[in-house]
């Protein structure tokens, strides 16, 4: 009688050097529909995005805008736009990478949406990489300052250039948001950037208008 387990045959079909890796993939989760999302590294650059048309954000220039740090350039406060609410993914993540190539710093930004229109932020970079600031951008325009110490939550008070918190969630669900983490690594400045995408784990959040 064979002692072969169901996963053994699949492991015999991959490259010898990749078996440990594939074993970890196999035990990690059940089979789901494959997902491949590809982006241009250049399009993730804030400098490149700044060159793009920002007219869609100017629509909101007279809406509620809260100044929250040096990356937010608009500080006027105007009337609220109608609140449309939000129904969509509750967890997001961005895998950020130093696109300048000055360092090999990389890491993850996790964003977990709460029912009270706040979101928990977790920034996890390489060991020894110092984080000095972190932001969310849409087409090169800063829309949120992320906390790097103290209270790890963001709320409307962290946003700028957006009418409300739901607008940020809608933009993240549509994969229009880039996370940027700035800092230094053994004295060399880095700017790690990456697209914010819905995380495969986590449920759907519904925030009523």
């Amino acid at each position: 009688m064979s002692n072969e387990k169901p996963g053994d045959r699949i492991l015999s079909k991959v490259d010898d050097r990749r078996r440990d890796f594939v074993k970890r993939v196999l035990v990690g989760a059940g089979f789901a529909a494959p997902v491949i999302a590809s982006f241009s590294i250049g399009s993730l650059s804030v400098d490149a995005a700044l060159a793009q048309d920002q007219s869609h954000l100017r629509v909101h220039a007279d809406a509620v805008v809260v100044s929250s740090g040096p990356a937010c350039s608009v500080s006027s406060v105007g009337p609220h736009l109608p609140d449309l609410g939000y129904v969509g993914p509750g967890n997001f993540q961005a895998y950020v990478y130093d696109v300048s190539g000055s360092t090999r710093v990389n890491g993850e930004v996790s964003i977990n949406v709460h029912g009270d229109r706040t979101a928990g932020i977790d920034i996890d970079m390489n060991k020894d990489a110092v984080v000095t600031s972190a932001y969310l951008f849409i087409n090169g325009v800063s829309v949120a300052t992320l906390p790097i110490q103290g209270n790890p939550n963001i709320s409307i008070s962290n946003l700028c250039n957006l009418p409300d918190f739901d607008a940020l969630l809608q933009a993240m669900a549509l994969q229009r948001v880039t996370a940027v983490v700035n800092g230094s690594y053994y004295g060399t400045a880095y700017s790690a950037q990456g697209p914010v995408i819905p995380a495969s784990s986590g449920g759907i959040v519904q925030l009523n208008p």
Partner: protein
Amino acid sequence: MTVAETAPRCLPGLDISPTEDGYVIYQPELDRVHYLNHSAILILELSTGSNSAADIAGFIQEAYGLPEPPVAMVRETIAKLSEQKLLE
């Protein structure tokens, strides 16, 4: 004949980094970054040049105890991996 009908081969030397919910592959020379979930990365890893799409679907069916081999899903994924230049 499409790549899914032959035995696809993963591009050698890909830098695959695990993240909390999947895997990221950077191809700075092509100005591309790819996010793959665990199912897509498994299909990529099984693309050794020896396994056809039907073979890969069979291995996945066996490993996960699926009622049917996910042939169409594997073919579609291989086509997309090829389109994104992750296969030779």
